[in-house]
Each structure stands twice: as C-alpha cells, then as structure tokens.
C-alpha cells in the first residue's frame, strides 16, 4: 500500500549539535537511537530494521559506510541495517526507505538514524578540501559548497534587485530562533551588521550566511499506522513524501536550463509530496516548516520553490515576518542549518523530529499553537536532489 497515511513517526531522539570532541560517530548513532526508542516508550528489541543516513564517511575514517556502524553502536545483531546516502537528503532518505518497508508490510517498527561526524578533522580539512581535491580533475575545479550557492545568490540579487542585507535577515531570524533550541550548535543573536561584516566566504556570502561545520545525530522510530494507533504514546503520520533527482554532478553548471533562481528538484519533490498529502495551497495548509537553509539565499529560494512565496517574492515574505516565530508560516524555528549546523546525514532526521514534535504538541518553547501539519525539506549536492516530507497529526 502507499506510504501516505499509513506510516507513523512514533518517537524521536536528537543529540546536541556542535563540536563534540568527546563523542565519536558511533556515540552519535547510539545516543540518538536509544533516545528515540525511549521516547517511543519501547525497547530496542522491538525494532525490526534500521536505515542509517551518513553522507561522507571519509570524514570519520570510513566508519559509517555500511550498516555495520549501527550494529557496532547499539545492540542490533542480527537485524537488517542499510546505510543510505544521497548528499544532504541522506537523513530523509533513511526515513523514506523505512517508510516504504513499513508500507510494504515487511516491518512494523523500524529506526531511521542520521549521523555525521564532521569535526574529527578541522573545518577546512573536511568537506571543503575533499571537494576541492578528490572530485573531477578538471570539471568544476574551483567549486566549493558555499561557492555553488554564491552563484545562486548573485543571480538572485541581480535578477530581483535584492541585497546582501536581505540575505542577512535569514541568519538573524534563524540564529534568534536557536535561542529556543538547546540542541542547536550556536545560541547567540546576530544583527544584520554582524552578518555583513563577518569574514567573506564566497561573495556575497560571509561566515554568517553559511551553515557551520558540526557533529550531530538524530533518530526517529517509525511504525505502521495500526501499530501506532494501538501502542504509541504519540504519533504523526507521513502524509506525503517526494524525492526528486534532476541532474548529475555538473548539470547545473554546464546545462543551459538552470536559471540560478531556485531548484527544480525542490519543486518536483514538493509537488509529489503535496499531491500525496492533498495539499493545493501550502501557504494556507501548512503550519510550520523546516527547510534546507544551508546558506541564507537557500532559505529564500526554498520558500519560493516550496510554494509558500511566489517566484521573486521570497524576500518580501521574509521581511513581512510571516516566516518568523509568531508569524503565520514559521520557517526554521529550530534555528535551521544556519544555527543548528549541518551534520549532513543527521539534518534530515533532525527536521523530521522537529516537525514530529510540532504536530504532536511537544515542541516546548518553539511550539506553534495548534500546529497540525508541517513540512521537512532537504536539498543536496549542486541542488540536484531534494526531499520533501509532510507530516500531520492523526485524525486530520
């Protein structure tokens, strides 16, 4: 049967996100998985299978390149574990794979785990150097992750007449939000001036326009709707799920089609998720969003690609306060990637945990009153892979 309406999130666990020298990669798996299981009110032996989202095991000595990492971290032998990887959507891919196994009737209760240990190497020694050195010897040489999104920022600013100050507002909003999230990497307010005067990373992006380099783990327990109705303390249903892969490693750069104003992958993934969830007006029908704000510009284009702002109107939406805490369509109340950081595989699962808490009324200080339906979005690589999952409280 299809996933929509039949698969539930029944528990969640998230480690602190930060520079966690005392915690190993395997600790991130163990702590978040055990916390999720405990939150679900069950024992680990009830979990039948697990999926592990980790994008770059090279930053952790190759540990995390297979399901063996989970069997080493927690008591899981001999149950099946699959490591999945799809750039920054890896965490949500673990959720998606688990959901399909449940919908297929193969399992009743599974774990989706996302974890990434990025700070066992220095920040510049990790993904930046890896991308610079290990990728294709000629194509796109000179590319970095911030550099890729800076191309988007410059074209967006040029086309719509937006400014660096407009971009900075995303960082200010999300860093402010993180003060309500003890698990976030950073907890300090920023001003627009702080953002504009920060060291330059890739013009027009400076340090505070970029997600930091962070360790972290997050897990969710998922179950069939029947199991959840009979056993769960609280649960949310997956109402829609979309994954779109629109191109390869270089398509966005050497392809004449990309307008550098947004991402076709997000639009396609959202369309699929909205179709399954029966959403035709996301601005009205969603109560809360976590979207992939790897860079300030990305949150702005995400709101357009997800259909909560019209093309070119992302800055207007941001400035209206609608996406702020207290606004009618809050985005990244957790602090987003901007302030939580982006342990790549963990991010998507952290977002699912956040929306799960929102729509089950357990988001504490961050709670959106009466939230019944929320969305999680991750975007990967040069923007060619996007994952969108809509969660809703049952009985909607």
């Amino acid at each position, binding site marked *: 049967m299809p996933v929509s309406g039949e698969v539930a999130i029944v528990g969640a666990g998230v480690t602190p996100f930060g520079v966690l020298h005392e915690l190993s990669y395997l600790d991130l798996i163990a702590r978040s998985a055990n916390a999720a299981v405990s939150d679900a009110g069950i024992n680990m032996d009830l979990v039948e299978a697990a999926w592990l989202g980790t994008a770059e095991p090279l930053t952790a000595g190759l540990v995390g390149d297979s399901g063996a990492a989970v069997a080493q971290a927690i008591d899981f032998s001999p149950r099946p574990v699959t490591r999945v990887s799809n750039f920054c959507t890896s965490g949500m891919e673990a959720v998606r794979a688990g959901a399909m196994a449940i919908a297929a009737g193969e399992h009743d209760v599974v774990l989706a785990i996302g974890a990434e240990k990025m700070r066992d190497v220095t920040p510049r020694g990790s993904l930046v150097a890896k991308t610079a*050195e290990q990728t294709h010897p000629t194509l796109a040489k000179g590319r*970095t992750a911030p550099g890729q999104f800076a191309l988007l920022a410059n074209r967006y600013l040029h086309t719509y007449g937006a400014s660096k100050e407009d971009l900075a507002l995303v960082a200010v909003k999300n860093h402010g939000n993180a003060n309500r999230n003890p698990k976030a990497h950073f907890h300090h307010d920023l001003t627009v001036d702080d953002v504009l005067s920060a060291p330059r990373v890739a*013009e027009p992006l400076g340090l505070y326009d970029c997600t930091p380099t962070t360790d972290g783990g997050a897990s969710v327990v998922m179950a069939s709707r029947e199991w959840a109705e009979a056993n769960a303390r609280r649960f949310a249903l997956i109402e829609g799920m979309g994954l779109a892969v629109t191109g390869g490693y270089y398509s966005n750069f050497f392809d004449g089609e990309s307008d550098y104003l947004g991402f076709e992958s997000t639009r396609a993934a959202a369309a699929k998720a909205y179709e399954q969830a029966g959403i035709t007006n996301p601005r009205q029908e969603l109560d809360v969003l976590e979207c992939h704000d790897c860079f300030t510009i990305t949150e702005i284009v995400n709101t357009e690609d997800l259909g909560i702002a019209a093309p070119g109107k992302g800055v207007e939406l941001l400035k209206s306060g609608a996406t702020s805490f207290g606004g009618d369509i809050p985005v990244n109340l957790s602090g987003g990637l901007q302030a939580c950081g982006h342990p790549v595989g963990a991010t998507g699962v952290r977002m699912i945990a956040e929306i799960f808490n929102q729509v089950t009324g357990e988001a504490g200080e961050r709670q959106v009153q009466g939230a019944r339906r929320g969305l999680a979005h991750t975007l990967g690589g040069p923007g060619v892979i996007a994952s969108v999952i809509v969660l809703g409280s049952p009985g909607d």
Partner: protein
Amino acid sequence: MAVAAWDQDVITLGAHAAMEVLSRHPDVVPSTIFFASTTAPYAEGSNVAILAEALNLAGTGCTGFEVGSTTAAGAAAIELALDRVARGPVLVIAADCGRSAGGRPFGDGAVAWLIGSQGECAQIDAVSGDLSWFMDRWRIDGSGDITQSDRSLRAVSPGKSFAKSVGADLHIDDANPAIAGAGYLGTAAYLASVVLAFEGKRKGTRLTASASAGGASHALHLTAGSAAKHVAARFRERFDCGFDEEPTAAPDVASFDPYTSESRRWRERAADLRLEASRDTSGRVVYPPATDGERVGLARSGKVFTQTTDHVYPLGGPVSMAVIELDGGGRFYGQVIDGLGVEIGEPVNLVMRRLHMGGGVPQYFWKIAPKGRT
C-alpha cells in the same frame, strides 16, 4: 607576451598562437606540425601530440616533430617545414617560457606560422645554415637554470660571422634584438622578429634573417607579400602591451594533491584540451560530452551569467568562478584567470591554461578571461 601568467606554459601559449593563425585560414588543414621550444614541459613524452589534440588535428594523419636544443630552433623548424610543404600545409609553432627556466631578461611567448605552397604574407626563397659549436647560452639537463657566457665571449660568436656571410639584414641571437614589450622570446624570437621586420614594408621587399644559438645557425631569405605589413602591425600591437600590473603570483600549491587518473586523462582528452562537447537528439549542446553522440566544439566566447569570488577554496585564494552563457548555446563553469572579478553580462573568452600539476603532470583545461585580457 613578455610575462606569462603562473598558469601558462609553452603548450598553452603555443596552442593559442596556433589557434589564431588557423582561425584566419579555416580552409587550411596542416598535415605537419613542427613545435620548437627549449622549455617544453615533457622532456620525454610528446608535447606536439598534446598540441595536436588541442588543435583538433589528432587522428587526421597529421604528423608532428619537436625541434629543440637551442633558441635557434624556431628558425630551424621553418627550414624543416620547407621540405614538408609538398605533402601539405605545415604549422610551425615556436614557444618558450624562458623565465620559467631562470632566463633573464627573457620573455615568454609563442608565435605560429602557417607555411604552404601559396600565401600573401611572405615567400621563402632560400635557406642557409652552419654549425660551429659555441657557448653563448646553455642549460644542462636536470641542473636548473639557463646560463649565459660573458659578454665579451658572446661578441665573438660564430653566429655573427655567419650572419655577415649570408648578408643578413637581421640577426637574432639571445642579445639581439629584445623586442620592446616582449623581451627575448627564445625560439619564438626569430618568428616574431622576421614579421616585425616587415613593418611598413611593401610587397616585394627582400629580407635576409639569421638566427644563431649554441653555434647552430640558420638563415632564411624572404620576400614580403601584400599582407606582410598588416601582420607586422598586428604583432606590434600585441608586443607593445608590456604589462602595467604585477602578474598574479602563483598560488601555493605545495599541499594541493588533487585526484588524478591517467586513464581518465587520456579518455577525456578531447573534452579537456579542446572543449569537445556532444549534441543530443534534440540538438542541445551537452558538456561534458556524452560518450555516444555527435561531436561539436563548445564556443569559446560568451557572457557571464553569474559569478562569485570564493575565499575558502584551498588552492591559494581567492578563486574567481563564473558560469558563462556561451555563444551558440551551452554553458561553461570554471575559474576566471588571475582571480579577476567579472560582472553578470560581461563578455568573456575561454582560454587554455594549466589548471594544476596533479600527479606531477600538467593538467590543461580552460579558464575564463575578460575580453581584451588574454
């Protein structure tokens, strides 16, 4: 030329000189290439084969020869070319980056001549040559820099008496002449100086020009054609540019160890060296090229679509990156030369450069250059 950028060498300079002369004669397909240089990157390995790939002459039956040893090799290559003309047009490329071998005040540059059985530039009527070993300038293999003997010894060089004996109007050796705005261009000096000697000269003007280095001497006797003075004027413009700014320092590459694969380098040589792309069934230009599919070349000019200056790229920074909308379709994404900033909408060209030395081997690729700045 004068001062090559840190990412230029005799291959990139030579390729561009050749591309320019070939583009002015699009119906001429050389059947032989002579490449003359004393500072080519491969002491063993074929520099001329790389040039043939870059010029889309590989696999066409075109053969190549490398002429080296002394900076008179440019003149020597012309002489050798004359014997090959019966088989088809000959491309002679002379290039040296003397500064890279510690040469002073030697310039960096490349000049290409296209030699055939007809043409409007000049006619080569006769040649002469001589060998009489002499230590004017030398470089011992594996032991570093170019050395010159002292001036008083060079004053008695046999090259000078050879020049006199053939009645040379112009004699090129390492002291003479230094081309204003270029310096001494090594093997390219002869090809450049002969052209410049035709400045303002009408068709029919005769010129005897000799070259000598290391005791190897060569001379050509030429007659100017109707185009000679126009080519000379074009060269003078190029040489009079000098340089107004410090060339960009080479980035510190000591710790940069990019992934390389010789298998990939060979397999993707057309895409790397001449931006060969493919066309899909709907007519769209595709780069990198699909393995199957009609072959086309990417255009080498266009406009900036978007750009950034990247401060975190680890190979010396900041790196300027841009996406270019190419004339005729397709896009290119890559580095801008010398870290120059470019603006959206700015017209640019694509230029061949040495991207890095991964695996200890020069990796050639293309970069973006603002128009008027190559």
